[in-house]
Protein backbone atom coordinates (compact mmCIF):
# COMPACT_ATOMS: atom_id res chain seq x y z
CA UNK A 1 0.00 0.00 0.00
CA UNK A 2 1.54 3.22 -1.12
CA UNK A 3 -0.78 5.33 1.02
CA UNK A 4 0.82 4.32 4.32
CA UNK A 5 4.39 3.98 3.02
CA UNK A 6 5.39 7.61 3.63
CA UNK A 7 4.14 7.50 7.22
CA UNK A 8 6.09 4.34 7.98
CA UNK A 9 9.13 6.07 6.53
CA UNK A 10 8.57 9.15 8.73
CA UNK A 11 8.40 6.93 11.81
CA UNK A 12 11.58 5.11 10.78
CA UNK A 13 13.43 8.38 10.32
CA UNK A 14 12.34 9.61 13.75
CA UNK A 15 13.34 6.29 15.34
CA UNK A 16 16.82 6.49 13.80
CA UNK A 17 17.13 10.13 14.82
CA UNK A 18 16.28 9.34 18.46
CA UNK A 19 18.72 6.45 18.47
CA UNK A 20 21.57 8.87 17.75
CA UNK A 21 21.03 10.65 21.07
CA UNK A 22 22.62 7.93 23.18
CA UNK A 23 23.58 10.20 26.02
CA UNK A 24 19.99 11.30 26.46
CA UNK A 25 18.88 7.69 26.76
CA UNK A 26 21.37 6.99 29.52
CA UNK A 27 20.51 10.13 31.46
CA UNK A 28 16.79 9.51 31.23
CA UNK A 29 17.19 5.98 32.57
CA UNK A 30 19.56 7.28 35.26
CA UNK A 31 17.16 9.98 36.41
CA UNK A 32 14.32 7.46 36.42
CA UNK A 33 16.25 5.21 38.78
CA UNK A 34 16.95 8.12 41.10
CA UNK A 35 13.26 8.92 41.24
CA UNK A 36 12.34 5.28 41.86
CA UNK A 37 14.69 5.33 44.84
CA UNK A 38 13.33 8.67 46.13
CA UNK A 39 9.74 7.51 45.92
CA UNK A 40 10.66 4.35 47.85
CA UNK A 41 12.20 6.50 50.59
CA UNK A 42 9.23 8.86 50.73
CA UNK A 43 6.61 6.10 50.93
CA UNK A 44 8.63 4.20 53.55
CA UNK A 45 9.00 7.33 55.66
CA UNK A 46 5.30 8.14 55.39
CA UNK A 47 4.17 4.61 56.19
CA UNK A 48 6.56 4.23 59.13
CA UNK A 49 5.08 7.35 60.68
CA UNK A 50 1.65 5.98 60.01
CA UNK A 51 0.88 8.80 57.62
CA UNK A 52 0.09 6.34 54.85
CA UNK A 53 -3.50 5.96 53.92
CA UNK A 54 -4.90 2.50 54.18
CA UNK A 55 -6.18 2.58 50.63
CA UNK A 56 -2.84 1.13 49.52
CA UNK A 57 -0.28 -0.94 51.39
CA UNK A 58 3.32 0.25 51.43
CA UNK A 59 4.27 -2.37 48.87
CA UNK A 60 1.38 -1.34 46.63
CA UNK A 61 2.37 2.32 46.89
CA UNK A 62 5.95 1.53 45.87
CA UNK A 63 4.75 -0.66 43.01
CA UNK A 64 2.35 2.09 41.94
CA UNK A 65 5.09 4.75 41.81
CA UNK A 66 7.59 2.55 40.03
CA UNK A 67 5.12 1.54 37.33
CA UNK A 68 4.05 5.20 37.00
CA UNK A 69 7.66 6.24 36.42
CA UNK A 70 8.15 3.53 33.81
CA UNK A 71 4.96 4.69 32.06
CA UNK A 72 6.26 8.25 32.06
CA UNK A 73 9.09 7.17 29.74
CA UNK A 74 6.55 7.25 26.92
CA UNK A 75 3.76 9.33 28.47
CA UNK A 76 6.04 12.34 28.82
CA UNK A 77 6.74 12.45 25.10
CA UNK A 78 4.82 15.15 23.32
CA UNK A 79 4.41 13.34 20.03
CA UNK A 80 3.24 16.33 18.02
CA UNK A 81 5.48 19.10 19.38
CA UNK A 82 7.11 19.22 15.95
CA UNK A 83 4.04 21.25 14.92
CA UNK A 84 4.93 24.09 17.29
CA UNK A 85 8.58 24.30 16.32
CA UNK A 86 7.62 24.18 12.65
CA UNK A 87 5.14 27.01 13.14
CA UNK A 88 7.74 29.01 15.01
CA UNK A 89 10.43 28.80 12.35
CA UNK A 90 8.02 28.71 9.43
CA UNK A 91 9.24 25.40 8.07
CA UNK A 92 5.65 24.16 8.18
CA UNK A 93 5.41 25.78 4.75
CA UNK A 94 7.37 23.00 3.10
CA UNK A 95 5.13 20.36 4.69
CA UNK A 96 2.02 22.03 3.33
CA UNK A 97 3.50 21.68 -0.13
CA UNK A 98 3.67 17.94 0.05
CA UNK A 99 0.83 15.57 -0.75
CA UNK A 100 0.67 14.28 2.79
CA UNK A 101 -1.76 14.43 5.65
CA UNK A 102 0.14 16.78 7.94
CA UNK A 103 -1.28 15.77 11.35
CA UNK A 104 -0.60 12.16 10.37
CA UNK A 105 2.96 13.15 9.51
CA UNK A 106 3.43 14.61 13.00
CA UNK A 107 1.87 11.53 14.60
CA UNK A 108 4.13 9.23 12.58
CA UNK A 109 7.22 11.16 13.46
CA UNK A 110 6.21 11.07 17.13
CA UNK A 111 5.44 7.35 16.90
CA UNK A 112 8.98 6.60 15.82
CA UNK A 113 10.16 8.51 18.86
CA UNK A 114 7.72 6.76 21.18
CA UNK A 115 8.59 3.30 19.89
CA UNK A 116 12.23 4.01 20.55
CA UNK A 117 11.58 5.21 24.09
CA UNK A 118 9.18 2.36 24.77
CA UNK A 119 12.11 0.04 24.10
CA UNK A 120 14.00 1.66 26.98
CA UNK A 121 11.28 0.56 29.42
CA UNK A 122 12.65 -2.98 29.57
CA UNK A 123 16.21 -2.15 30.70
CA UNK A 124 14.79 0.53 33.01
CA UNK A 125 12.49 -2.03 34.61
CA UNK A 126 15.32 -4.52 35.10
CA UNK A 127 17.48 -1.88 36.74
CA UNK A 128 14.60 -0.63 38.88
CA UNK A 129 14.14 -4.15 40.23
CA UNK A 130 17.56 -3.81 41.85
CA UNK A 131 16.20 -0.93 43.93
CA UNK A 132 12.62 -1.92 44.65
CA UNK A 133 10.46 -4.96 44.72
CA UNK A 134 7.31 -4.60 42.64
CA UNK A 135 4.22 -6.72 42.65
CA UNK A 136 3.20 -8.53 39.49
CA UNK A 137 -0.53 -9.01 38.98
CA UNK A 138 -2.24 -11.90 37.18
CA UNK A 139 -1.89 -12.15 33.38
CA UNK A 140 -5.50 -11.01 32.88
CA UNK A 141 -4.91 -7.88 34.94
CA UNK A 142 -1.68 -7.24 33.05
CA UNK A 143 -3.49 -7.43 29.71
CA UNK A 144 -6.20 -5.01 30.89
CA UNK A 145 -3.48 -2.75 32.33
CA UNK A 146 -1.62 -2.57 29.02
CA UNK A 147 -4.84 -1.88 27.14
CA UNK A 148 -5.79 0.86 29.58
CA UNK A 149 -2.24 2.26 29.42
CA UNK A 150 -2.59 2.42 25.64
CA UNK A 151 -5.93 4.26 25.91
CA UNK A 152 -4.42 6.62 28.48
CA UNK A 153 -1.54 7.25 26.15
CA UNK A 154 -3.95 8.21 23.35
CA UNK A 155 -5.79 10.60 25.70
CA UNK A 156 -2.49 12.34 26.50
CA UNK A 157 -1.43 12.38 22.88
CA UNK A 158 -4.66 14.08 21.79
CA UNK A 159 -4.59 16.54 24.69
CA UNK A 160 -1.06 17.55 23.66
CA UNK A 161 -2.11 17.81 20.03
CA UNK A 162 -4.97 20.17 20.94
CA UNK A 163 -2.55 22.32 22.95
CA UNK A 164 -0.03 22.32 20.10
CA UNK A 165 -2.74 23.47 17.69
CA UNK A 166 -3.27 26.56 19.84
CA UNK A 167 0.08 27.69 18.42
CA UNK A 168 -1.69 28.34 15.11
CA UNK A 169 -3.18 31.39 16.80
CA UNK A 170 -0.62 32.26 19.45
CA UNK A 171 2.68 30.75 18.19
CA UNK A 172 3.75 30.46 21.81
CA UNK A 173 2.21 27.84 24.08
CA UNK A 174 4.86 26.98 26.65
CA UNK A 175 3.16 28.74 29.58
CA UNK A 176 -0.14 27.05 28.83
CA UNK A 177 1.58 23.70 28.46
CA UNK A 178 3.27 24.19 31.81
CA UNK A 179 -0.07 24.79 33.51
CA UNK A 180 -1.55 21.67 31.91
CA UNK A 181 1.51 19.68 32.99
CA UNK A 182 1.04 20.82 36.60
CA UNK A 183 -2.63 19.93 36.54
CA UNK A 184 -1.82 16.54 35.02
CA UNK A 185 0.86 15.93 37.63
CA UNK A 186 -1.58 16.73 40.40
CA UNK A 187 -4.83 15.24 39.12
CA UNK A 188 -3.48 12.54 36.82
CA UNK A 189 -2.30 10.32 39.64
CA UNK A 190 1.27 10.00 38.42
CA UNK A 191 2.82 11.38 41.59
CA UNK A 192 0.09 11.03 44.21
CA UNK A 193 -2.32 8.12 43.78
CA UNK A 194 -5.81 9.59 43.51
CA UNK A 195 -7.05 7.24 46.23
CA UNK A 196 -5.14 9.45 48.67
CA UNK A 197 -7.37 12.44 47.89
CA UNK A 198 -10.30 13.27 50.22
CA UNK A 199 -13.33 11.15 49.34
CA UNK A 200 -15.43 14.20 48.45
CA UNK A 201 -13.15 15.23 45.58
CA UNK A 202 -12.27 11.69 44.47
CA UNK A 203 -15.53 11.02 42.60
CA UNK A 204 -15.04 14.24 40.69
CA UNK A 205 -11.34 13.75 39.85
CA UNK A 206 -11.85 10.24 38.48
CA UNK A 207 -14.11 11.56 35.73
CA UNK A 208 -11.57 14.09 34.47
CA UNK A 209 -9.38 13.28 31.45
CA UNK A 210 -6.23 13.57 33.58
CA UNK A 211 -7.20 10.50 35.61
CA UNK A 212 -7.76 8.63 32.34
CA UNK A 213 -4.07 9.14 31.52
CA UNK A 214 -2.20 7.71 34.52
CA UNK A 215 -4.56 6.82 37.33
CA UNK A 216 -6.87 4.38 35.56
CA UNK A 217 -4.18 1.97 34.27
CA UNK A 218 -2.22 2.23 37.52
CA UNK A 219 -5.19 1.50 39.76
CA UNK A 220 -5.99 -1.47 37.51
CA UNK A 221 -2.40 -2.66 38.00
CA UNK A 222 -2.45 -2.49 41.79
CA UNK A 223 -5.96 -3.92 41.94
CA UNK A 224 -7.84 -0.97 43.43
CA UNK A 225 -10.00 -1.06 40.34
CA UNK A 226 -11.39 -4.59 40.26
CA UNK A 227 -12.61 -6.66 37.29
CA UNK A 228 -16.24 -5.62 37.86
CA UNK A 229 -15.28 -2.01 37.15
CA UNK A 230 -13.10 -2.63 34.07
CA UNK A 231 -15.81 -1.92 31.51
CA UNK A 232 -16.85 1.33 33.16
CA UNK A 233 -13.34 2.80 33.51
CA UNK A 234 -12.24 1.72 30.05
CA UNK A 235 -15.37 3.24 28.53
CA UNK A 236 -14.62 6.46 30.37
CA UNK A 237 -11.18 6.49 28.76
CA UNK A 238 -12.72 5.82 25.35
CA UNK A 239 -15.17 8.67 25.95
CA UNK A 240 -12.29 11.10 26.50
CA UNK A 241 -10.57 9.82 23.38
CA UNK A 242 -13.71 10.49 21.34
CA UNK A 243 -14.17 13.98 22.81
CA UNK A 244 -10.51 14.90 22.31
CA UNK A 245 -10.45 13.43 18.82
CA UNK A 246 -13.38 15.61 17.78
CA UNK A 247 -11.73 18.64 19.38
CA UNK A 248 -8.47 17.79 17.59
CA UNK A 249 -10.14 17.64 14.20
CA UNK A 250 -11.83 21.01 14.79
CA UNK A 251 -8.66 22.62 16.11
CA UNK A 252 -6.69 21.41 13.12
CA UNK A 253 -9.34 22.45 10.61
CA UNK A 254 -9.66 25.99 11.91
CA UNK A 255 -6.03 26.33 12.93
CA UNK A 256 -4.51 25.32 9.63
CA UNK A 257 -6.62 27.97 7.87
CA UNK A 258 -4.89 30.52 10.10
CA UNK A 259 -1.39 29.70 9.01
CA UNK A 260 0.87 32.65 8.86
CA UNK A 261 4.22 31.57 7.58
CA UNK A 262 6.97 33.14 9.63
CA UNK A 263 9.81 34.78 7.77
CA UNK A 264 9.45 35.45 4.08
Amino acid at each position, binding site marked *: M*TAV*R*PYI*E*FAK*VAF*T*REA*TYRFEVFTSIGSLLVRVYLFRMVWQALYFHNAGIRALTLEEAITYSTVALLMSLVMDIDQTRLLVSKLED*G*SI*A*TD*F*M*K*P*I*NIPLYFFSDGSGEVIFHAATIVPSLLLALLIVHIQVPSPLVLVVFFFSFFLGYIVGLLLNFILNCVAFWTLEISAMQLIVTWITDLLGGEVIPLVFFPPIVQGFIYVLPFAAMYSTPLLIYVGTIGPDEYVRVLLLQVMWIVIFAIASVLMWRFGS*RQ*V*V*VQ*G*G
Partner: protein
Amino acid sequence: MPIIETRRLRKVFRSVQRYPGVGGALRSLFTREYVDKVAVEDVNLTMEAGELVGYIGPNGAGKSTTIKMLTGILVPTSGEIHVAGLVPYQKRKENARNIGVVFGQRSQLYWDLPLRESFELLRAIYAVPRAKYDANMAFFSEILDLDEFMTTPVRQLSLGQRMRGDFAAAMLHDPSIVYLDEPTIGLDVVAKEAIRTFIAKVNEERGTTVILTTHDLADVERLCQRIVLIDDGRIVFDGALERLRMEYGTHRTLVVTLAEPCDNLTFPHTELVEQEANVVHLRFDRRKITAEHLLRLVTERCTISDVSIVEPEMEDIIRRIYLEGYRTQAPTPAS
Protein backbone atom coordinates in the same frame (compact mmCIF):
# COMPACT_ATOMS: atom_id res chain seq x y z
CA MET B 1 -6.94 26.73 -21.03
CA PRO B 2 -4.43 28.56 -18.80
CA ILE B 3 -2.62 26.41 -16.27
CA ILE B 4 -2.57 29.18 -13.68
CA GLU B 5 -5.29 31.73 -13.29
CA THR B 6 -5.97 34.18 -10.49
CA ARG B 7 -8.65 36.81 -10.46
CA ARG B 8 -8.83 39.74 -8.05
CA LEU B 9 -6.65 37.78 -5.65
CA ARG B 10 -6.34 39.48 -2.28
CA LYS B 11 -4.71 38.57 1.01
CA VAL B 12 -4.94 40.55 4.19
CA PHE B 13 -2.98 39.63 7.29
CA ARG B 14 -4.53 40.59 10.58
CA SER B 15 -2.33 41.13 13.58
CA VAL B 16 -2.68 42.55 17.05
CA GLN B 17 -1.88 46.23 17.34
CA ARG B 18 1.36 46.72 19.24
CA TYR B 19 2.22 49.86 21.14
CA PRO B 20 5.77 51.03 21.81
CA GLY B 21 7.53 50.73 25.15
CA VAL B 22 6.81 48.87 28.38
CA GLY B 23 3.51 50.66 28.93
CA GLY B 24 2.54 49.83 25.40
CA ALA B 25 3.39 46.19 25.91
CA LEU B 26 1.12 46.09 28.97
CA ARG B 27 -1.57 47.91 27.10
CA SER B 28 -1.51 45.43 24.23
CA LEU B 29 -2.00 42.66 26.81
CA PHE B 30 -5.41 44.02 27.65
CA THR B 31 -6.69 45.64 24.51
CA ARG B 32 -7.38 43.74 21.38
CA GLU B 33 -7.04 46.11 18.50
CA TYR B 34 -6.17 44.66 15.19
CA VAL B 35 -4.29 46.09 12.29
CA ASP B 36 -4.87 44.79 8.83
CA LYS B 37 -1.94 44.59 6.51
CA VAL B 38 -2.73 44.10 2.88
CA ALA B 39 -0.04 41.86 1.41
CA VAL B 40 -1.72 41.23 -1.92
CA GLU B 41 -4.26 43.79 -3.09
CA ASP B 42 -5.40 42.72 -6.50
CA VAL B 43 -3.47 40.17 -8.49
CA ASN B 44 -4.76 38.97 -11.84
CA LEU B 45 -2.33 36.53 -13.33
CA THR B 46 -2.78 34.13 -16.21
CA MET B 47 -0.15 31.67 -17.32
CA GLU B 48 -0.15 29.10 -20.08
CA ALA B 49 1.49 25.71 -19.72
CA GLY B 50 5.20 25.76 -20.51
CA GLU B 51 5.71 29.45 -19.81
CA LEU B 52 8.66 30.68 -17.79
CA VAL B 53 7.69 33.85 -16.03
CA GLY B 54 9.83 36.13 -13.90
CA TYR B 55 7.81 37.43 -10.98
CA ILE B 56 9.65 40.39 -9.60
CA GLY B 57 9.07 43.24 -7.22
CA PRO B 58 10.65 44.93 -4.21
CA ASN B 59 10.70 43.32 -0.76
CA GLY B 60 7.25 43.17 0.75
CA ALA B 61 5.52 43.67 -2.59
CA GLY B 62 3.53 40.45 -2.22
CA LYS B 63 5.57 37.99 -4.29
CA SER B 64 5.95 35.30 -1.67
CA THR B 65 2.39 35.72 -0.48
CA THR B 66 1.15 35.11 -4.02
CA ILE B 67 3.32 32.00 -4.30
CA LYS B 68 2.05 30.71 -0.97
CA MET B 69 -1.53 31.12 -2.12
CA LEU B 70 -0.72 29.32 -5.36
CA THR B 71 0.78 26.42 -3.43
CA GLY B 72 -2.23 26.19 -1.11
CA ILE B 73 -0.45 27.13 2.12
CA LEU B 74 -2.31 30.38 2.52
CA VAL B 75 -6.02 30.84 2.07
CA PRO B 76 -6.81 34.00 0.08
CA THR B 77 -8.94 36.63 1.78
CA SER B 78 -10.89 37.01 -1.44
CA GLY B 79 -10.59 36.40 -5.13
CA GLU B 80 -10.33 33.32 -7.28
CA ILE B 81 -7.42 31.05 -7.87
CA HIS B 82 -7.05 28.02 -10.12
CA VAL B 83 -3.92 25.97 -10.64
CA ALA B 84 -4.18 23.15 -13.18
CA GLY B 85 -7.92 23.18 -12.68
CA LEU B 86 -7.74 22.96 -8.88
CA VAL B 87 -8.37 25.49 -6.14
CA PRO B 88 -5.10 25.05 -4.21
CA TYR B 89 -6.30 25.71 -0.66
CA GLN B 90 -9.31 23.43 -1.09
CA LYS B 91 -7.39 20.59 -2.74
CA ARG B 92 -4.03 21.11 -1.11
CA LYS B 93 -2.82 17.52 -1.43
CA GLU B 94 -3.93 17.02 -5.04
CA ASN B 95 -2.39 20.36 -5.90
CA ALA B 96 0.84 19.33 -4.17
CA ARG B 97 1.25 16.46 -6.63
CA ASN B 98 1.25 18.90 -9.54
CA ILE B 99 3.73 21.35 -8.16
CA GLY B 100 7.35 21.58 -7.13
CA VAL B 101 8.63 24.37 -4.92
CA VAL B 102 12.05 25.73 -4.14
CA PHE B 103 12.51 28.38 -1.48
CA GLY B 104 15.94 29.94 -1.50
CA GLN B 105 15.69 30.70 2.20
CA ARG B 106 14.21 27.43 3.35
CA SER B 107 15.02 23.82 2.60
CA GLN B 108 12.53 21.05 2.10
CA LEU B 109 15.22 18.43 2.58
CA TYR B 110 15.29 16.49 5.83
CA TRP B 111 17.93 18.04 8.00
CA ASP B 112 19.05 14.87 9.79
CA LEU B 113 19.24 12.68 6.73
CA PRO B 114 21.90 12.19 4.09
CA LEU B 115 20.79 13.72 0.80
CA ARG B 116 20.13 10.34 -0.79
CA GLU B 117 17.78 9.33 2.01
CA SER B 118 15.94 12.63 1.73
CA PHE B 119 15.31 11.78 -1.91
CA GLU B 120 14.22 8.25 -1.00
CA LEU B 121 11.77 9.69 1.52
CA LEU B 122 10.39 12.05 -1.11
CA ARG B 123 10.10 9.10 -3.49
CA ALA B 124 7.89 7.41 -0.90
CA ILE B 125 5.84 10.58 -0.33
CA TYR B 126 5.11 11.11 -4.01
CA ALA B 127 5.03 7.37 -4.82
CA VAL B 128 7.44 7.83 -7.73
CA PRO B 129 8.03 4.52 -9.55
CA ARG B 130 11.58 3.22 -9.18
CA ALA B 131 12.44 3.42 -12.90
CA LYS B 132 11.16 6.99 -13.16
CA TYR B 133 13.08 7.90 -10.02
CA ASP B 134 16.34 6.45 -11.34
CA ALA B 135 15.94 8.21 -14.69
CA ASN B 136 15.24 11.53 -12.97
CA MET B 137 18.13 11.18 -10.58
CA ALA B 138 20.47 10.47 -13.47
CA PHE B 139 19.23 13.57 -15.29
CA PHE B 140 19.56 15.79 -12.20
CA SER B 141 22.96 14.45 -11.16
CA GLU B 142 24.35 15.23 -14.55
CA ILE B 143 23.37 18.91 -14.53
CA LEU B 144 23.62 19.55 -10.82
CA ASP B 145 26.64 17.38 -9.93
CA LEU B 146 24.92 15.75 -7.00
CA ASP B 147 27.07 12.64 -6.80
CA GLU B 148 29.86 14.14 -4.74
CA PHE B 149 27.59 14.89 -1.76
CA MET B 150 24.79 12.33 -2.03
CA THR B 151 25.79 10.63 1.21
CA THR B 152 26.40 13.82 3.21
CA PRO B 153 23.79 14.75 5.82
CA VAL B 154 21.85 17.80 4.67
CA ARG B 155 22.89 19.85 7.70
CA GLN B 156 26.53 19.60 6.55
CA LEU B 157 25.96 20.75 2.97
CA SER B 158 27.13 24.12 1.75
CA LEU B 159 24.44 26.55 0.61
CA GLY B 160 25.20 25.87 -3.04
CA GLN B 161 25.05 22.11 -2.56
CA ARG B 162 21.86 22.36 -0.54
CA MET B 163 20.18 24.47 -3.22
CA ARG B 164 21.15 21.96 -5.89
CA GLY B 165 19.71 19.23 -3.68
CA ASP B 166 16.54 21.25 -3.18
CA PHE B 167 16.09 21.66 -6.93
CA ALA B 168 16.36 17.93 -7.49
CA ALA B 169 13.97 17.34 -4.58
CA ALA B 170 11.40 19.70 -6.07
CA MET B 171 11.55 18.04 -9.49
CA LEU B 172 11.67 14.40 -8.44
CA HIS B 173 7.99 13.74 -9.07
CA ASP B 174 7.86 15.49 -12.47
CA PRO B 175 5.68 18.41 -11.41
CA SER B 176 3.99 20.29 -14.23
CA ILE B 177 4.41 23.61 -12.40
CA VAL B 178 7.42 24.79 -10.44
CA TYR B 179 7.55 27.78 -8.13
CA LEU B 180 11.01 29.13 -7.48
CA ASP B 181 11.13 31.69 -4.71
CA GLU B 182 14.48 33.47 -4.84
CA PRO B 183 16.37 30.30 -5.68
CA THR B 184 19.70 31.96 -6.42
CA ILE B 185 19.90 34.07 -3.28
CA GLY B 186 23.34 33.98 -1.69
CA LEU B 187 24.87 31.68 -4.29
CA ASP B 188 28.21 32.16 -6.00
CA VAL B 189 28.51 32.66 -9.73
CA VAL B 190 29.21 29.01 -10.52
CA ALA B 191 26.29 27.68 -8.49
CA LYS B 192 24.01 30.35 -9.97
CA GLU B 193 24.98 29.30 -13.44
CA ALA B 194 24.33 25.61 -12.70
CA ILE B 195 20.91 26.46 -11.31
CA ARG B 196 20.02 28.67 -14.28
CA THR B 197 21.04 25.98 -16.73
CA PHE B 198 18.90 23.53 -14.80
CA ILE B 199 15.83 25.79 -14.87
CA ALA B 200 16.22 26.46 -18.58
CA LYS B 201 16.66 22.77 -19.35
CA VAL B 202 13.69 21.66 -17.31
CA ASN B 203 11.51 24.29 -18.93
CA GLU B 204 12.66 23.46 -22.45
CA GLU B 205 12.94 19.70 -22.34
CA ARG B 206 10.05 18.86 -20.06
CA GLY B 207 7.75 21.77 -20.81
CA THR B 208 7.50 22.57 -17.11
CA THR B 209 5.74 25.81 -16.28
CA VAL B 210 7.97 27.96 -14.10
CA ILE B 211 7.34 31.00 -11.93
CA LEU B 212 10.58 32.51 -10.78
CA THR B 213 10.79 35.24 -8.17
CA THR B 214 14.16 36.84 -7.78
CA HIS B 215 16.01 40.01 -6.99
CA ASP B 216 18.79 39.06 -9.33
CA LEU B 217 17.79 40.50 -12.67
CA ALA B 218 20.49 38.51 -14.39
CA ASP B 219 18.30 35.46 -13.66
CA VAL B 220 15.39 37.14 -15.37
CA GLU B 221 17.37 38.33 -18.36
CA ARG B 222 18.89 34.93 -18.84
CA LEU B 223 15.71 32.89 -18.40
CA CYS B 224 12.42 34.71 -18.78
CA GLN B 225 10.57 35.73 -21.89
CA ARG B 226 7.86 37.34 -19.85
CA ILE B 227 8.04 39.29 -16.65
CA VAL B 228 5.36 40.25 -14.18
CA LEU B 229 6.16 43.15 -11.90
CA ILE B 230 4.35 43.47 -8.61
CA ASP B 231 4.42 46.46 -6.32
CA ASP B 232 2.28 47.15 -3.26
CA GLY B 233 0.26 44.03 -3.91
CA ARG B 234 -0.71 44.96 -7.45
CA ILE B 235 0.65 43.88 -10.77
CA VAL B 236 2.12 46.96 -12.38
CA PHE B 237 3.62 45.43 -15.48
CA ASP B 238 2.99 42.20 -17.32
CA GLY B 239 4.67 41.58 -20.63
CA ALA B 240 7.80 40.81 -22.54
CA LEU B 241 11.11 41.87 -21.09
CA GLU B 242 11.82 43.75 -24.33
CA ARG B 243 8.67 45.81 -23.94
CA LEU B 244 9.68 46.87 -20.45
CA ARG B 245 13.03 47.95 -21.81
CA MET B 246 11.38 49.92 -24.59
CA GLU B 247 8.82 51.64 -22.41
CA TYR B 248 10.95 52.39 -19.42
CA GLY B 249 14.41 52.45 -20.85
CA THR B 250 13.75 55.92 -22.17
CA HIS B 251 17.20 57.19 -21.34
CA ARG B 252 20.46 56.20 -22.88
CA THR B 253 23.93 57.41 -22.31
CA LEU B 254 26.28 58.80 -24.91
CA VAL B 255 29.87 58.29 -23.84
CA VAL B 256 32.23 60.67 -25.56
CA THR B 257 36.01 60.84 -25.33
CA LEU B 258 37.17 64.38 -25.90
CA ALA B 259 40.27 64.96 -27.97
CA GLU B 260 40.79 68.33 -26.31
CA PRO B 261 39.08 70.11 -23.36
CA CYS B 262 35.63 71.42 -24.06
CA ASP B 263 33.83 73.84 -21.70
CA ASN B 264 30.18 73.96 -22.52
CA LEU B 265 28.66 70.53 -22.22
CA THR B 266 24.99 71.44 -21.76
CA PHE B 267 22.68 70.12 -24.45
CA PRO B 268 18.89 70.01 -24.72
CA HIS B 269 17.16 66.99 -23.02
CA THR B 270 20.57 65.86 -21.89
CA GLU B 271 22.20 65.59 -18.52
CA LEU B 272 25.90 65.44 -17.80
CA VAL B 273 26.01 62.54 -15.40
CA GLU B 274 29.70 61.84 -15.16
CA GLN B 275 32.95 63.37 -16.28
CA GLU B 276 36.23 61.69 -15.68
CA ALA B 277 39.32 63.26 -17.25
CA ASN B 278 38.34 63.53 -20.90
CA VAL B 279 35.57 60.89 -20.85
CA VAL B 280 32.08 62.41 -20.61
CA HIS B 281 28.81 60.59 -19.91
CA LEU B 282 25.76 62.32 -21.38
CA ARG B 283 22.38 60.83 -20.42
CA PHE B 284 19.67 61.73 -22.89
CA ASP B 285 15.97 61.09 -23.34
CA ARG B 286 15.70 59.18 -26.58
CA ARG B 287 12.07 60.20 -27.02
CA LYS B 288 13.05 63.86 -27.27
CA ILE B 289 16.42 63.79 -28.95
CA THR B 290 18.03 61.17 -31.15
CA ALA B 291 21.55 59.94 -30.55
CA GLU B 292 22.50 61.15 -33.98
CA HIS B 293 21.20 64.67 -33.30
CA LEU B 294 22.96 64.85 -29.95
CA LEU B 295 26.21 63.63 -31.44
CA ARG B 296 25.97 66.33 -34.09
CA LEU B 297 25.49 68.99 -31.40
CA VAL B 298 28.50 67.67 -29.51
CA THR B 299 30.79 67.58 -32.53
CA GLU B 300 29.76 71.11 -33.48
CA ARG B 301 31.15 72.32 -30.19
CA CYS B 302 33.96 69.91 -29.30
CA THR B 303 36.54 67.72 -30.93
CA ILE B 304 36.07 64.09 -30.03
CA SER B 305 38.25 61.04 -30.45
CA ASP B 306 35.81 58.26 -29.54
CA VAL B 307 32.10 57.71 -29.00
CA SER B 308 29.77 54.92 -27.77
CA ILE B 309 26.14 54.52 -26.67
CA VAL B 310 25.25 52.66 -23.47
CA GLU B 311 21.89 50.89 -23.39
CA PRO B 312 19.96 51.20 -20.13
CA GLU B 313 20.65 48.39 -17.67
CA MET B 314 17.68 46.27 -16.68
CA GLU B 315 18.68 46.95 -13.10
CA ASP B 316 18.29 50.71 -13.57
CA ILE B 317 14.92 50.37 -15.22
CA ILE B 318 13.53 48.25 -12.42
CA ARG B 319 15.03 50.50 -9.78
CA ARG B 320 13.37 53.50 -11.37
CA ILE B 321 10.01 51.78 -11.40
CA TYR B 322 10.38 50.79 -7.74
CA LEU B 323 11.36 54.30 -6.73
CA GLU B 324 9.03 56.36 -8.84
CA GLY B 325 6.11 53.97 -8.94
CA TYR B 326 4.56 52.77 -12.12
CA ARG B 327 1.48 54.91 -12.52
CA THR B 328 3.21 58.26 -12.05
CA GLN B 329 5.09 57.91 -15.27
CA ALA B 330 2.57 56.97 -17.89
CA PRO B 331 4.44 55.23 -20.67
CA THR B 332 4.53 57.20 -23.87
CA PRO B 333 5.65 55.23 -26.86
CA ALA B 334 9.02 56.10 -28.27
CA SER B 335 8.88 58.13 -31.44
